[in-house]
């Protein structure tokens, strides 16, 4: 990992840039923000810069601001507005799925965790459907969700699975909280977090307990032409599909099968099977609705304890710690967390390997403080 920190760019001190960013003309504000963010080039500060580019709506708690666009099979974003918050359903089913799925995701975070949208401050939920042609994918681009139509041969449209929608939106939550680096173990945790909360959105919509849920990701995405039940299984990683064209589900369910690769940012969609399975085990162990306790433990741990370099061992320790704080040391919930991680080959309380952390220098730290003061914290 590259920990290169830019040399000092603090000829104009950060506190002065902050004043300009608050009180200057629009052009001066942009220049000041650019200088501050150039000085604060560690990854976690990009979220503040990205946030600066988003128009801030005065955020009433519990109010959704959804907008769904179509890219008309091109790649220009966000595209043409199709449905704004409060508007009636569109004739376009993908538009309505993106609208409803965003709403259900917002509601999970708001009703259960008191989180007001992805940034905790009423961030607009923008989605674009019909991205590109035959596009077998959906993604979060740092500011919005984007969904393809699938090729119709192997894949359906990507809005068809509500857990896909919850998964993408949760990348936004992660960006504004733990900001797990999208590489190797932190990246696999990032991916797992999105699968977990995507699944919880689906489970809550269906009113399913942990026992009743299928714990599958993207079950509706695969056409009848594919030999498989879903893209991923949290209950049984590695068993979701086995198809002549797609290949076999490569996910491990245990650390002994961890996949070391340079592809897929170090296998973030592959090794997510390990924390996914740990979550499944602890949720079933705790019983009831998985979003209430297991989900709460992970959400609180990610929001308050994880950082961009958190690896699996640290996540185990920190979720275990969070469970103790929420439900008591030695509680059934805390023991369930330990059991979940143990099932995938991780013992809570073991020493994690030292993780490289960006070391802010004096100017860098001051720029970070200025950006935080301008745009707020978690």
């Amino acid at each position, binding site marked *: 990992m590259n920990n290169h920190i830019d040399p000092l760019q603090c000829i104009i001190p950060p506190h002065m840039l902050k004043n300009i960013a608050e009180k200057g003309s629009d052009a001066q504000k942009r220049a000041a923000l650019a200088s501050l963010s150039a000085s604060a080039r560690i*990854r976690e500060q*990009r979220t503040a810069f*990205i946030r600066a580019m988003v128009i801030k709506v005065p955020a009433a708690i519990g109010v959704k601001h959804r907008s769904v666009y179509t890219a008309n099979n091109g790649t220009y974003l966000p595209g043409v507005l199709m449905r704004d918050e409060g508007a009636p359903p569109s004739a376009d089913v993908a538009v309505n799925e993106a609208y409803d799925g965003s709403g259900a995701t917002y509601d999970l975070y708001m009703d259960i965790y008191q989180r007001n949208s992805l940034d905790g401050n009423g961030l607009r939920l923008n989605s674009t459907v019909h991205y590109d042609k035959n596009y*077998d*994918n*959906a*993604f*979060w*681009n*740092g500011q919005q969700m984007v969904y393809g139509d699938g090729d119709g041969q192997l*894949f359906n449209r*990507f809005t068809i699975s509500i857990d*896909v929608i919850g*998964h*993408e939106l949760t*990348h936004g939550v992660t960006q504004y909280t733990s900001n797990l680096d*999208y590489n190797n173990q932190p990246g696999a945790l*990032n*991916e797992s977090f*999105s699968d977990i909360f995507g699944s919880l959105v689906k489970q809550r919509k269906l009113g399913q307990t942990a026992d009743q849920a299928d714990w599958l990701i*993207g079950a509706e*995405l695969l056409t009848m032409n594919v030999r498989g039940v879903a*893209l*991923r299984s949290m209950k049984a990683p590695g068993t979701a599909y086995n198809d002549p064209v*797609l*290949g076999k589900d*490569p996910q491990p369910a245990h650390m002994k099968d961890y996949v070391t690769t*340079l*592809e*897929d*940012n170090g296998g*973030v*969609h*592959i090794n997510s099977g390990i924390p996914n399975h740990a979550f499944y085990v602890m949720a079933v162990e705790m019983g009831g609705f998985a979003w209430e306790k297991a989900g709460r433990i992970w959400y609180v741990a990610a929001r308050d304890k994880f950082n961009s370099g958190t690896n699996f061992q640290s996540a185990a320790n920190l979720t275990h710690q969070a469970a103790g704080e929420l439900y008591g040391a030695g509680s059934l919930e805390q023991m369930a967390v330990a059991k979940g991680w143990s099932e995938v080959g991780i013992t809570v309380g073991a020493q994690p390997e030292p993780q490289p952390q960006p070391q802010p220098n004096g100017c860098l730290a001051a720029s970070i403080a200025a950006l935080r003061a301008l745009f707020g914290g978690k």
Partner: protein
Amino acid sequence: MKIDFVRSGGFAGLRLSVNVDIQTLPADQSAALAKLIRDSGFFNLPAQIKSPYGGADRFEYRLTISDAGRSHSVTVGEAAMPESLRPLIERLTEMAKSPR
């Protein structure tokens, strides 16, 4: 000229790959592919092309081309795709998807 192409990542985390020996292609396909490679300026591209604002669930491409004693590999993220390289990537993706 030999081409080794892998697409990874994306929401589904699927792996799509193809190996092409340009000499084994029909003449028109071989010429078209060679032109796409020339137009992309491939051998002058950096080994890693990633966007700092890459987001999540984007595709990742790794392309290795060997020709007359030189070999070069480029790993490029979908979000950071140079316009000059895009047509070559799209062609190779089509080839990787078509039945052998």
